[in-house]
């Protein structure tokens, strides 16, 4: 490989030049660069040069154009800037400004001890880091570190220690998880082999218990354990393949697929942004008004975009802009109230709409056929109306009381009109997205006329979008959550297998007391179910919690003559509750998406969220008389 040494005859060279040749393998050993993709590193090789430097040589001055990133192979360099104390480096990178797209160097670099440096030209770095964004983030961090004080350095050390501790804890958790993935199935197998269960049922539960451990400890991505069970079941011939694979031909699968497709077109069209501007345009200029507006916007998005993350992605930039536009103090009470409203709007009602969340489709797939035909999109919404209203009203009231403050929104008049003017008339994509949504919902609400079941209405709309080219092949591949669809099909197949093997009946006879309790006092049952789910959620991820509870509770409800939808709805609603940030991926998404501007106070937000958990219980209790009125209970 190339080795270029730029000598300087006016200065004395280092005594022991390194035997470095700039090749792929050497670059791979350098911190940060080691995280680059191998093809990227390979592209760097021809452009990197080794440079010999002598004591006192000035490599660059503060304010000079940042054209080169340096890495110290031998010797040492001093960085001197106006903002920090001089720093002497004998290893690592400096001149990171060239890597992070800053125009000029912020310090002067002078060689203290002769040696050798690797030089990375800015142009090639820019191309390489474009496809390795995390490495660029690393250079940002490295750059910041040069200008930190000793306290900062201490903090960095602590952070590293903390990271290291977190890594150790994570590895311990994984090791324990894999160990239990071996032990638990063995216990299940030997514990059940002499029970009344059949041989296929015992083997099924053995494999299923391994999957449950994998889900609980998050040993692998969420869809992988479902595939493990399916593969195990088919290999051992425990259940006919048409049963265990039935999830992949179920209406729920195609419904989810079509809603993902329609949601993608909607999200990409810009229609939501236009809708948001129109809502804000007519919002009364008060804190309450703007809070309610983002709330309603979230509520409107909930049935349209089945990915909660997608809804967060829509609402987060809007939140950032609104906090600035309304003149709220960042991290202040008014801004936090707005953030809490925005977050509640897009997350709180996920159980109230069939199409609000991907896991809802899986639960729909668990239902007996006659419950599926009973709970169309409209009937699902009808059955949740009281819960929805209670959630909405109590959450708005609670946020009004909790976030009392005197800040006044100061939105410039004409601000929104100007934005609307700027985006112009609706584009063809927006018309198509709006049309698709309209056809989808009108189709579902008029199913009694055309007799086409909802999944196939969804597939019809998806076909239209594909035929019109609104959903490109690339988008179809990238933006549809295929991993979730695999998981959904697997979940449905698992529940069907449980039913086929009569494990549900066996299990129901062992928890008959719970079934009678379900029939005896539904208020008490609901409350205890909620508490159980909150307890389980401290350890178990949300989708796994839903699957575990639904696979037990739905057959039990059927056996007890309770409409299984009621139990499923409560499981979905309570599973979304959370206390700690780690329990809620969507909260961490919101934090990440607004990290740059940090518009809200996280502590207050989390504190407020504690109370919203109570609202979920209130929504269920208030719905019980309504469900009795509807004849569901």
């Amino acid at each position, binding site marked *: 490989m190339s080795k270029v040494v730029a000598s300087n005859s006016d200065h004395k060279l280092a005594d022991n030049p390194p035997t470095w040749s700039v090749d792929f393998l050497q670059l791979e050993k350098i911190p940060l660069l080691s995280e680059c993709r191998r093809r990227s590193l390979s592209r760097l090789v021809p452009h990197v040069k080794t440079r010999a430097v002598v004591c006192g040589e000035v490599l660059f001055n503060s304010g000079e154009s940042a054209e080169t990133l340096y890495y110290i192979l031998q010797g040492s360099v001093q960085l001197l800037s106006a903002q920090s104390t001089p720093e002497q480096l004998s290893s690592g990178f400096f001149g990171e400004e060239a890597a992070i797209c800053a125009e000029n160097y912020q310090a002067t670099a002078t060689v203290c001890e002769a040696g050798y440096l690797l030089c990375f030209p800015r142009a090639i770095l820019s191309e390489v880091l474009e496809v390795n964004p995390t490495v660029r983030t690393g250079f940002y961090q490295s750059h910041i570190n040069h200008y930190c004080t000793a306290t900062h350095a201490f903090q960095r050390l602590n952070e590293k220690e903390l990271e290291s501790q977190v890594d150790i804890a994570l590895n311990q958790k994984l090791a324990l998880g894999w160990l239990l993935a071996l032990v638990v199935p063995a216990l299940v197998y030997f514990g059940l082999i002499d029970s009344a269960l059949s041989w296929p049922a015992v083997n099924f539960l053995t494999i299923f218990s391994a999957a449950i451990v994998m889900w609980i400890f998050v040993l692998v991505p969420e869809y992988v354990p479902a595939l493990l069970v399916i593969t195990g079941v088919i290999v051992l011939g425990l259940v006919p393949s048409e049963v265990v694979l039935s999830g992949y031909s179920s209406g729920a699968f195609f419904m989810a697929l079509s809603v993902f497709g329609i949601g993608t077109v909607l999200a990409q069209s810009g229609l939501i942004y236009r809708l948001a501007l129109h809502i804000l345009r007519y919002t009364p200029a008060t804190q309450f008004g703007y809070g309610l507006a983002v709330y309603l916007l979230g509520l409107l998005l909930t049935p349209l975009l089945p990915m909660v993350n997608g809804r967060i992605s829509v609402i987060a930039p809007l939140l950032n802009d609104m906090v600035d536009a309304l003149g709220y103090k960042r991290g202040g009470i008014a801004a936090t109230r707005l953030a809490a409203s925005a977050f509640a709007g897009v997350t709180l009602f996920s159980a109230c709409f069939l199409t609000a969340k991907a896991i809802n489709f899986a639960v729909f797939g668990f239902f007996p056929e006659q419950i599926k035909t009973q709970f169309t999109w409209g009937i699902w919404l009808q059955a949740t109306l009281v819960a929805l209203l209670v959630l909405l009203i109590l959450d708005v009231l609670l946020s009004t009381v909790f976030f009392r403050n005197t800040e006044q929104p100061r939105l410039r008049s004409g601000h929104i009109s100007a934005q609307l003017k700027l985006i112009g008339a609706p584009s063809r994509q927006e018309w198509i997205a709006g049309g698709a949504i309209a056809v989808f919902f009108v189709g579902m609400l008029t199913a009694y006329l055309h*007799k086409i079941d909802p999944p196939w209405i969804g597939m019809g709309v998806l076909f239209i979008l594909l035929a019109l080219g609104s959903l490109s092949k690339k988008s179809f591949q990238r933006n549809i959550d295929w991993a979730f669809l695999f998981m959904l099909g697997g979940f449905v197949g698992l529940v069907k297998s449980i039913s086929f093997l009569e494990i549900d009946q066996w299990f129901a006879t062992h928890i*008959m007391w719970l079934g009678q309790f379900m029939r005896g006092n539904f208020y008490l049952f609901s409350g205890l179910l909620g508490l159980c789910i909150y307890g389980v959620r401290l350890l178990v991820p949300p989708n796994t919690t839903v699957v575990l509870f639904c696979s037990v509770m739905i057959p039990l409800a059927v056996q007890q003559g309770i409409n299984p939808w009621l139990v499923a709805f409560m499981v979905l609603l309570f599973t979304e509750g959370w206390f700690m940030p780690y329990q809620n991926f969507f909260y961490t998404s919101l934090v990440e998406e607004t990290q740059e501007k940090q518009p809200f106070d996280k502590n207050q937000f989390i504190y407020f969220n504690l109370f919203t958990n109570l609202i979920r219980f209130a929504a269920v209790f208030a719905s019980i008389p309504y469900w009795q009125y509807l004849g569901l209970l």
Partner: protein
Amino acid sequence: MQTATFSRAMTLLFLLVLAVFLIVQNVSKPRVLILHSYYTDFSWVQDINVGINRILEKKSYKVRWHYMDTKRHPDQDFMVRAGNTVRNMIDSWQPDIIIAIDDNAQQYVARYYVNHPKIKIVFTGLNKTEKDYGYDQATNVTGMLERINYQAVKDILLQVLPPDRRRVLHVSDVSNTSEGIHNEIVAFDWAPLQLLDSIQTATFDDWKKVIHEAEGKTDFLLLTHYHTIKESPTGAIVSPKEIIKWTNANSALPGISFWGFYVEDGGMMAVALSPYEQGEIAAKMAVNIIENATPPKQIPVETSHLFVMYMRDSEIKNRLGSLNLPLVYEAFAKATNNYYE
């Protein structure tokens, strides 16, 4: 530009025609609702479905199956609620034909559609009479009555029991279905057998009492339905298997039933109505109405005439002892895969 517009217009036209085609074809497809009074855990239901599927699986109808589950939940509130749920579904889905199976489906759903201008009713598994549901005056109803072959049971008992041991006692639960059976049993001429009584019991304690008291006073038990017997008047339903298990353990009397589930639950013998026949005939009637546009009133109501033997070897040996059961019954049960060890 013009070409692009034309192409777009043709795409939209194609999609429109496709949508119209699919909707028209779908709407014109016959819709059949199979409405069961009970749930799929009941072998009677499963076997009726086998009979229905023999006829309907090759037809391109839209078929929905609904199970009211009133055997496991016999309380009035549940049955009314189950009936309302189905009626809401029927009003929305508008099936062309309802195949209503067993009495509760008639009582809580089908009778509300008597003389409906569009919906036709085919009943099957009907223990009560057509008059009980207003079907005798209806123009849109036909079906099949579920009538027990009492004569076949009487013949078997006469062959097995000596002249001095011919006392028979009928015991069942309290339900819509049992009410009809009770009336038929009481009305049937059992002579020279002697029907001591026909008793309906609501609770498991009542059942136990009747079985205990029957010991020494009767020679043969006629056990029909026992699926709605509760632990107490307000308690939970007792598992049917548990009832037969207890009866076997606490009574030395031989038992016979008119349904195969009795033997599946552990009982001795059944001269059972054929559930396959009930399903198959009803489905054939539905096809006749759909494909030949035959008015239901012109299709005569049929009565079940096939029966199947179910036997449990261990119980026969324990209870019949020296009594002689002709081998032909055992051969029949074995030939139809209804002979249990």
